């Protein structure tokens, strides 16, 4: 019976950790997606300084979430988002044509990360 109780406690902790992980990833990826949209809106409306500052803010938000994410998620998935977040700041600064495609790619990667942590039939299978 002791083993059964220990198992139940462990299962509850694991379920709690899983729910926390899902919520945390969902929130951070949501912020990343909405932040990418804001950067593009500011840039396309001509406010390049605003876009640059927002991009820097986006990068630092991701950097603060990164250590927590590396405990829960595969580092290979996170490395791509790391690269894109840091690149976007320089693309805004350099007025690059690749900004839009990189922002779109960032949104897709964040959405894929979020979808992977959502408990659906597709993500399980």
């Amino acid at each position, binding site marked *: 019976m002791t*083993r*059964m109780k*220990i*198992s*139940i406690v*462990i*299962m509850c902790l*694991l379920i709690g*950790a*899983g729910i926390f992980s899902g919520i945390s990833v969902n929130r951070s990826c949501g912020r990343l997606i909405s932040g990418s949209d804001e950067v593009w809106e500011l840039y396309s409306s001509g406010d390049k300084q605003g876009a640059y500052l927002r991009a820097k803010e986006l990068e630092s938000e991701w950097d603060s979430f990164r250590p927590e994410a*590396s*405990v*829960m*998620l*595969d*580092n*290979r998935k996170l490395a791509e988002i790391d690269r894109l977040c840091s690149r976007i700041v320089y693309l805004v600064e350099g007025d690059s044509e690749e900004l839009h495609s990189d922002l779109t790619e960032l949104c897709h990667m964040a959405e894929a990360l979020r979808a992977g942590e959502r408990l659906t039939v597709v993500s399980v299978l």
Partner: protein
Amino acid sequence: MCVVLVRSLILYISVIFAVRLMGKRQLGELQPSELVITILVSNIATLPIEDVSIPLAVGLTSILSLVCFEVMTSWLSLRFPKLNRLISGSPKIIISGGKIDTEVMAELRFSVDDLMTALRGQGVFDISEVQFAIVETTGSISVMKKPGCDMPARRDMGISASDEDPPQLIAADGSLLLPAIKSLGMNAEAVRKIISGTGMSVGEVLIMTADSSGKCYIAGKDGGAPYIIYGGAL
């Protein structure tokens, strides 16, 4: 490299904890579900060690959740015998009354070689000696020989014997094992006195066993001849 070392240590401790949580049944013969869990846990444990990009939490979650499922399943199997039969199956009688059941052999996909190998594993080299054989859910075979071919028991020969528990280890590696001493109704002082009667001290004792009749076996660390003491006297 240090990261791999620490991850290996953490996973090693986790796997030991997991095996202990599953209980002593794991260390004996395995039921199908237990075999599955053992294989899965050992394979999963290697993944975070080999690949440092996989978070340790992912490996630990998999291992712990599998083990917990196994413990819960085995608890439920105890409460619901039908579930136990569904997961582990039921034993099958392969030889009954000395006759081999070929239908059961076909059902179990047991060839003649498999049957003979299993019987030899039970110390039976002559199949005509077998009265009853049953294939357990673990895949092992339990055999009952015909009475005429089996070793006679004391009862068969009319020899009486008292029911006694086997000797218990009461001192090991220079230390007294107080719970075992207490369970035999002895006390530590009496044990020390017995040991000193052999010319040794407690610290010099490698193994000491005693049974309920007072017979003691003492072997010293020096590798000399052991002492066998009856009723506390040399």
